[in-house]
């Protein structure tokens, strides 16, 4: 079992969210303030190369479109910016979202011609570029969302999206835009898909607001993690859902690692692997098996390092895990959507960690 690649980018400062570029040589992240920072890979480490400071308030989410090389960021200041690289610097374009509450989450669509912004205004803003006016236009999905939307994910067909909300429901909507998308229908989620069609509504059996949602690589199933420490999988609008109660603290971010496996991270500070065995989803194991305690060599150095990193001189306060605090986001890093081989996580402890799923000791458990 090889250990994960750990990069301590900040001390005492959380990383709210992160997104890599296509070749994984740069990462955009937010150090829990109004900035979007771009770090570049130098040798085995990372150095800060650009700071994008156009937002006024906390940046809540960032996504990097791999092929068009554009970054979209959204913030509690209710704005979203699309950043494009002109060869020397990142140029911002303001997107008029027309929302009166914080923007909470943003994702590019797979074809990268649209993006969706979730918000506290009980709506989802689906944005697309209008050539005639040379600006980004947003259309709102409002009904029947009754509370803040915390997360969303796109279906691979570029039409559907799934959104998880604090009204305890995960919903699948159509984000079909006239003039942008060709006529659409989907064998699982619906035949007719005009904009804002509700194609499915799901809640976990014990309630709990939804932290994170994800579409399976095929788009035929969704998964969502809610605050009741469960992970729920739904395979269509009328099929029965499957809720997996876990023994852990709630997950806050999930991705599909393949059609039959899910990686979830959250308040437990370790990633968990879920897998479909036969017809039954189950929690397989922690992906982080913990680290061996280092011997207390070089004590004076460690003492000052500890004072620096957590403002206390003594005490064995280290968790037996790679991340030392809640993991805030997980993204696929290497491999195809059908078979993710590496994934990256960032957390409140200021670490960026790149995990190798194949060599992490759970590979033999995968299907």
């Amino acid at each position, binding site marked *: 079992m090889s250990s994960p690649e750990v990069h301590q980018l900040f001390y005492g400062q959380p990383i709210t969210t992160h997104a890599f570029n296509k070749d994984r040589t740069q990462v955009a992240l937010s150090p829990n303030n109004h900035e979007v920072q771009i770090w570049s890979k130098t040798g085995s480490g990372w150095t800060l190369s650009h700071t994008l400071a156009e937002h006024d308030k906390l940046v809540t989410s960032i996504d990097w479109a791999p092929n068009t090389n554009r970054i979209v960021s959204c913030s509690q200041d209710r704005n979203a910016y699309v950043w494009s690289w002109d060869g020397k610097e990142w140029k911002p374009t303001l997107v008029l979202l027309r929302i009166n509450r914080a923007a909470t989450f943003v994702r590019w669509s797979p074809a990268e011609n649209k993006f969706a912004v979730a918000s506290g205004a009980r709506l989802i803003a689906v944005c697309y570029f209008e050539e005639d006016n040379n600006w980004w236009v947003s259309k709102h999905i409002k009904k029947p969302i009754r509370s803040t939307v915390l997360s969303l994910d796109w279906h691979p067909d570029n039409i559907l999206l799934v959104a998880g909300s604090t*009204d305890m429901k995960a919903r699948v909507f159509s984000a079909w835009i006239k003039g942008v998308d060709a006529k659409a229908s989907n064998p699982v989620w619906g035949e007719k898909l005009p904009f804002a069609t509700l194609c499915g509504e799901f809640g976990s059996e014990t*309630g*709990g607001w939804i932290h994170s949602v994800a579409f399976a690589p095929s788009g035929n199933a969704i998964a969502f993690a809610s605050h009741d*420490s469960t992970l729920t999988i739904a395979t269509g609008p009328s099929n029965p859902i499957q809720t997996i*109660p876990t023994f*852990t603290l709630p997950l806050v971010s999930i991705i599909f690692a393949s059609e039959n496996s899910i990686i979830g991270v959250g308040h437990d500070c370790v990633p968990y692997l879920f897998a479909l065995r036969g017809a039954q989803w189950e929690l397989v194991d922690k992906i982080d098996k913990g680290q061996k305690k280092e011997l207390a060599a070089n004590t004076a150095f460690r003492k000052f390092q500890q004072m620096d990193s957590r403002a206390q001189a003594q005490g064995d306060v280290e968790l037996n895990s790679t991340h030392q605090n809640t993991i805030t986001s997980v993204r696929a890093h290497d491999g195809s959507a059908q078979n993710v081989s590496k994934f990256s996580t960032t957390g409140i402890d200021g670490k960026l960690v790149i995990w190798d799923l194949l060599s992490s000791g759970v590979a033999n458990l995968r299907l």
Partner: protein
Amino acid sequence: MSHRKVDVDFVDDEDAFVDENQTAASATLYSAEAESAVDARVNDARRLVSSGNMPAAVSRVLENPPAGPYPQSLKDKNTAIVLETLLAVRPNDMPAIVKSLSSTQLDTLMKYIYRGMAQPEAYNSGLLLTWHEKVTEAGGVGVIVRVLTDRKTV
């Protein structure tokens, strides 16, 4: 729980969030069927407890509890029989009983443990703490999180 009842939508009531999972305002709602179910549970539980079959008694009282939009009086009645049964179990027997329960039953059990600890004058908190320890051992902190999150209160 009072923070849950703060109406954050009062200035902006279009499409407001309606929580249908809290206690029902009207006593007539759901009551006939649910009441007979609670009465049956009381009889079964007392019979099983007096015959000394504690695992069956605990599993019986945790079946299909009136949680969510039921009248408070009905919930109180059910709470009384559940806690009466739980508190009749000896601490040494708890691990085996907990082990035999399904994960849904564990969640329900934890709900009633918290419900009981909210009324220390009525129910023995010491014994409930022992129950709490055993349930957490079996179900992890996930069980506690589910009790804190679930809006269908008992």
